[in-house]
């Protein structure tokens, strides 16, 4: 009898109740972020007639700290961006200057791409800043997926009116994300693909952001290298390190 109660206690939260939408998003987010990570990324802005590339190295710890070093193009190489909590700085080595960026810059497009600064340094939290609802399951590219609707909390610094996320049930990876404005119109669609082992996990290594008013254009982020759960401390994300990382 005693044994049975123990078994029940252990089982109830996991077995009897299905995962809540918020739990799923948290797991997906934790898997993609890790507690800390180091990445090498290439961002390509693609338009019908041309494309431009930016490559960068990034370090992050939780949601509060991140550091990005631009490694190409030549014009911007060596510039770095540091984010600590709500503060953000830009290091310009050519003129020996640290520029403190105003908070309004967070929602600006990242280097002219279809991503915003916020997408890159993740000021807002997909877990904490939204109310999540589980919708009808669906299938994407042969994978059975959860469909989760996310509505921003009233006080959250989020530009979207609604975000719909499709998550692979088997691997707990995002497959598709749709971003809507406050009037309910679709603004951006993010397609995640090239799912493969990287940094000891199985993750989508290619993220394509496609604006719906201009489906011929997109911005692609590719993870070229990814490592998780490094021994990064909070003080790694400092002014001195912003100037020193290579």
């Amino acid at each position, binding site marked *: 009898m005693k044994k049975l109660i123990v078994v029940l206690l252990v089982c109830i939260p996991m077995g009897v109740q299905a995962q809540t939408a918020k739990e799923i998003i948290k797991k997906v987010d934790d898997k993609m972020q890790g507690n800390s990570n180091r990445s090498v990324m290439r961002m390509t802005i693609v338009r019908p007639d041309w494309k431009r590339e930016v490559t960068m190295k990034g370090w992050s710890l939780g949601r509060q700290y991140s550091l990005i070093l631009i490694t*190409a*193009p*030549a014009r911007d190489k060596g510039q770095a961006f540091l984010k600590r909590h709500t503060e953000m700085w830009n290091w310009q080595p050519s003129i020996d200057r640290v*520029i403190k960026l105003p908070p309004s810059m967070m929602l600006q497009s990242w280097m002219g791409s279809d991503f915003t600064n916020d997408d890159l340094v993740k000021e807002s939290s997909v877990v904490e800043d939204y109310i999540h609802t589980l919708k009808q399951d669906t299938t994407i590219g042969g994978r059975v997926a959860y469909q989760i609707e996310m509505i921003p909390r009233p006080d959250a610094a989020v530009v979207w009116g609604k975000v719909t996320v499709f998550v692979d049930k088997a691997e707990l990876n995002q497959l598709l994300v749709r971003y809507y404005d406050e009037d309910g119109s679709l603004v951006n669609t993010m397609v995640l693909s090239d799912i493969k082992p990287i940094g000891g996990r199985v993750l989508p290594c290619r993220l394509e952001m496609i604006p719906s008013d201009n489906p011929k254009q997109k911005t692609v982020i590719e993870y070229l290298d990814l490592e998780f759960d490094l021994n990064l401390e909070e003080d790694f994300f400092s002014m001195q390190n912003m100037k020193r990382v290579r």
Partner: protein
Amino acid sequence: MVLLFQIPEDKMFAKVALILLLLPTTMLSAQDETDKPRKFTMKGYLKEMASFNYFGDSLLLQNLVHSRLNFAWYANAEFTVYAEFRTRLITGDLVREIPNYSAYIDSNNDYFDLSVNLIDNKTALLNAMADRLFIQWIHNNWEIKAGRQRINWGVNLAWNPNDWFNAYSFFDFDYEERPGADALRISYYTGVASSVEVAAKMAKDVDHFVGASMWRLNKYDYDIQFLGGLVQGDAALGTGWAGNLGKAGFKGELTYFHKVVNTQFNSAYNNMFLGAFSVDYAFPSSLYFNGSLMYNSQGSLHPDFGFELVALRPGTVRDLSPYTWSTFIQSAYQVTPLFYASLALIGYPGGDTFFVNPALTISVLQNLDVDLIGQLFYGEDQTGHFGSLLKAAYIRVKWSF
């Protein structure tokens, strides 16, 4: 290559400089695709700029070929050597018409003379200089830099009263890296966003000596700095900050100079106060605004030939503006990822002068940009007539590598 035979024979530096000018065409394969940091890095650019200068009705043309080479040698985890070279080949009417133009171009020196005019005649001017040449030593939270370096203590975009070591002019847009100073600089980082710095500039006399220290801290989401020192004969005190007003950025710099020793820079005053504030804001559409205001207690509402002074490169931080009040508004907009447009206006309340600066940057290829830039100066001329003093248009092609 044509230039080779004109090099003065006794100048070793000249030969080195010429090699540096020609280097970019031969060292282009040095692009790193791997993500491992390299021990030796080289980057830079080659720019070609044509300028059209209208002084009243007369048009003066100038052509500038401008190369920059930045070398860094990461000797080990603690020592790095930086050497950066700027080479300019200038031809056209300004070289021919303006008296002492070659001396003006060759003047960007600090204690050590690291600039040389390799060609200096009425047809062409070739100047080569090293504006960064320093060794950096890093150990934990310590950082020491010795040699020609840029010591940037300013926080604003347009005017920097805290920039005591190496003032620069907003009008000098083609000098993106801005001048350096021959100095020793010791920094200790007391935290993740705080530090103490001491810096001293080499000088042959007190007129040119700058020695100062700065304490930088981060509190209530503000970067705050306090400065003190001896600046070209003045006891100097200053403070600066960078923080937010709501979603907007709010920055400021204040400097107070009190004459201690009479020097060529402070002979006209006993005390001087310089202050500059700026507010900037970026809309989600990428439209960006910056508004700045500067005050100079020794300025004048109607300085004699103020605009001529404004347009020249500042000798020290005291020369940022000869006007009592100076205002700056800039808006910039990323039209598409390929087109970046901006418009800056500088006005002097109480005075009758203003400056208009439209600019468009076009990304033609991944590493090739074209800039179209206008600089329009309006004001009273020497006879008291209001009108355009100088209208300049620039077309610049920049290839970065």
